[in-house]
């Protein structure tokens, strides 16, 4: 079995341990550099202070409110962007004229840096959550849109012909062939889409709001509170890692039909 792979990776716990080691080493380096004043604690904070601040924020419960707001914005941006992306992706893929006519405009809008839209959205939708949701939607929409478009276009013609021979009408074809094919593309971009939904939320908050993680980081920066900034970034990072793990679980659930890399029975997954 060892023949199957030229080089075997160590087992999962070992890898986790190594990953943890990198984290510890990073904090240790940061700690040493700031303790010895090679890096100024004013500009770089100290890991102890950052951890302590994060801890008190979580304990006092202040952060939960902001976390909740950011999460809500992310979820809404993701949901709306995905649904719109799927709808338009299907429409464009099934209506060649539409797709040809709108092609340059889609590309143009997608090429636009979305950050410049943030003030416009704030103007239109106010400083509440909806301006952030709108920003997130503009990011998520295009990822999902392009993937669905691709997914519908790349349905195997043989599978399609087979379904038709088995008596599928256009409604069946949508539900049993096009949709699963498109969704597999959507799910493969799920990580990116969720990430962008959050970028939209945080950037929106950063540029103008009264709540959320982006707002907290912005506040801290305004008073040169580096520890606050780093603490905000730390919370954001934890948040991203947790969401990514959730997405991975969902992805595994929904795409169980897809071939994984070949594994022998005693290989570690």
């Amino acid at each position, binding site marked *: 079995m060892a023949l199957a792979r030229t080089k075997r990776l160590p087992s999962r716990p070992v890898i986790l341990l190594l990953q943890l080691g990198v984290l510890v080493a990073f904090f240790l380096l940061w700690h040493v550099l700031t303790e010895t004043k090679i890096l100024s604690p004013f500009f770089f904070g100290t890991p102890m202070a950052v951890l302590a601040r994060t801890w008190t924020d979580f304990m006092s419960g202040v952060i939960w409110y902001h976390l909740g707001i950011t999460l809500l914005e992310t979820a809404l941006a993701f949901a709306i962007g995905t649904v719109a992306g799927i709808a338009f992706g299907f429409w464009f893929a099934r209506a060649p004229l539409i797709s040809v006519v709108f092609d340059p405009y889609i590309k143009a809008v997608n090429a636009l840096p979305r950050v410049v839209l943030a003030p416009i959205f704030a103007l239109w939708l106010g400083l509440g959550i909806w301006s952030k949701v709108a920003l997130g939607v503009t990011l998520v929409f295009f990822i999902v849109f392009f993937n669905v478009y691709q997914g519908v276009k790349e349905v195997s013609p*043989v599978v399609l*012909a087979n*379904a038709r*021979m*088995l*008596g599928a*009408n256009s409604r069946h074809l949508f539900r*049993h062939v096009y949709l699963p*094919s498109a969704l597999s593309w959507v799910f493969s971009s799920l990580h990116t889409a969720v990430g962008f939904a959050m970028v939209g939320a945080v950037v929106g908050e950063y540029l103008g709001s009264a709540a959320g993680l982006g707002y907290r980081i912005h506040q801290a920066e305004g008073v040169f509170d580096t520890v606050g900034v780093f603490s905000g970034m730390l919370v954001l990072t934890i948040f991203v890692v947790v969401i990514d793990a959730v997405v991975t679980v969902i992805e595994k659930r929904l795409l169980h*039909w897809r071939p994984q890399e070949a594994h022998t029975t005693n290989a570690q997954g």
Partner: protein
Amino acid sequence: MPEVAAKAPALQTDGGATPALRLEGVTCTFPSPDGRGRTYTAVQGVTFTVAAGEFVSIVGPTGSGKSTILNVAAGLLTPSQGSALAFGKPVSGINPHAGYMFQADALMPWKSALENVAAGLEFRGVPKREAEERARPWLARVGLDRFGDRYPHQLSGGMRKRVALAQTLIVDPKIVLMDEPFSALDIQTRQLMENELLDLWSADRKSVVFITHDLEEAISMSDRVLVLSAGPGARLIGEYKVDLDRPRDVAEIRMTPRFLDLHREIWGQLREEVLKGYAQTKLT
């Protein structure tokens, strides 16, 4: 001497009964892939008839438009000229009497084996639960009762073909179109599948049009073998009745003298076409 038995591509008349399938002067012309308005004729003036319950094979060199003929019979392709008739009625759109087993993998990869087999029933309005209950015995028939919850990528090539076979037959098509269904399988699996197909077929005698480039496969399974000339513009050039006894075992029947005679006879004609086809592929 191979010329002797090569009759004209005839209109087989089967005692006046409506044939299950009839192609009449089918010509298919496609725009050439290199563009510039040129065209490419795959098949030309193809006429043949398949009686109800008859097993007919079509052999021909690669690139002779065998799949094109099946696509016309299935209603997936409208011929440039001529027409296809199923039980006397012209085929327009998908041929509702036909089941089609494709050469390439055509299972829906996001459905399990059981769901794939049940799909045809579901499309016909059978509730999902019931469709799956009815699909179970079909999986058992092709020897896969323990593999119902596997997805296509978790099955071997032979198993996928079995699922495809069950998927095609469960909706009880009167005409079964098969496009080199076993060509991707190794020889042992292939003979097993051929025997299984013959077993299933003898149970309820559907009309079968079986495309293959393998003459031995064609003779050992069919009632009749049609020979297609090399493309482009392939036409039917020979028709041979296979008068071997049934039930047959595809591996054993290949040893019988009658089989060898037939093989020699048909191969004499097919060989030239294969060589022609080969010469053309070398040119392009």
